[in-house]
């Protein structure tokens, strides 16, 4: 049972992270506008340069590396907008995060657990 609230289990979107990755998030957020999606389809490099993405962020977008983009500070609700623009759903993004093959992964959903907050102390102890 994975109780971690840290990467790669969880990418908590904190204010600090948001400030550091603000340009990436601005870029991804704007995929909600059809004009931006269209510009991305026609000339992704120019669009990424306009939004002042770093070289690393550009490489992650080119590679459709959704996990890397979230790890770089992209809020996942923003990053799935880029995924949607290239035809991938948030479930594809989820499979990518789990390093899983999508067709196999989707058969395994949902991942059911049955623990309660009162179980946490014992579980944390068991792990040590």
């Amino acid at each position, binding site marked *: 049972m*994975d*109780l971690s*609230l840290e*990467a*790669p*289990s*969880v*990418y*908590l*979107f*904190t*204010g600090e992270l*948001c400030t550091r990755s*603000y340009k990436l*998030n*601005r870029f991804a*957020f704007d*995929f*909600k506008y059809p004009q931006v*999606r269209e510009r991305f389809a026609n000339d992704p490099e120019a669009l990424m340069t306009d939004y002042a993405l770093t070289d690393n962020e550009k490489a992650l977008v080119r590679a459709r590396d959704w996990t890397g983009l*979230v790890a770089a500070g992209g*809020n*996942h*609700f*923003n990053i799935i*907008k880029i995924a*949607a*623009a290239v035809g991938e759903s*948030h*479930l594809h*993004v*989820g*499979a990518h*995060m*789990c*390093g899983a093959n999508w067709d196999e992964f989707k058969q*395994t*959903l*949902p*991942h*059911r*657990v*049955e*623990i*309660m*907050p009162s*179980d*946490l102390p014992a579980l944390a102890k068991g792990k040590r």
Partner: protein
Amino acid sequence: MSRILGGIGIAHTPSMGYQYDKGVREGFDPKWQPWYDGTRPVKQWLREKRPSHMVVIYNDHMNYFDLKAYPTFAIGVAAHFPQADEGYGLRPFPGVDGDPDFAWPIARSLVRDGFDLTFCQELELDHGVYSWLPYLFDAPWPLKVLPIAVNMLMHPVPTPQRLHALGASLRRALLNDGANRDVVVLATGGMSHQIHGTKFGLTNEKWDRYFLDAIEQRQDELVATPVEEIMQVAGTEAAELAMWYTMRAALAVSARTHYSFYTLPAVTGCGVIALDEPEPRG
């Protein structure tokens, strides 16, 4: 004073909306038929209550508010709130009407109580509202809506205690607004789910059913549960459940569950509860 008729807590998720549109077009997916059926009694309850206004505590999901200025509590004071386009085009529903004459006295009362609101003269509503809306009402929507959007995306998010206090203050505002409305308070936040990271797809029916039960009379127990623990057992996005505290605190302590329902159609727990406010004593 306005009358508080009751409260609703309900989950939301984009697929809930998608499956509604598909369901009415070509029949519901067997996984989603229970949710459709399970929401019928709430729709009926609302039809009988006949609220004129509904306060909706919800959160946006990077569909309207951008990060340039991200509010903790934003209140929609406009006369109309369009549906937000999440990037797949608008669903076939009209926008929702607001009522500035209802909204402003409440906003004033909340500010007087020390709530630091962001006042929105424009606001578009995403699946946080539109995913469950057609399950509960037929368009054209038969009531006016006062949306209060809560930051649930960027930490620090407001504490459970703060969300509870907001509900208590909202109750004071409604009962002293000098008007004569029939109000339902609705809060919506996803139940167990996590939609990012290697714990993607986590759900916890046990927690969700406990929550649906405890919100009626053991809200203190819930409010005292650290959000981190909820995120651990029910997935990070289940932190949204804290918004339900606002709804519950806006009702009388003696309010009781009229109906609740739970199902788990996909990767998010889907539950709903309707609470009756006791009749005010003559």
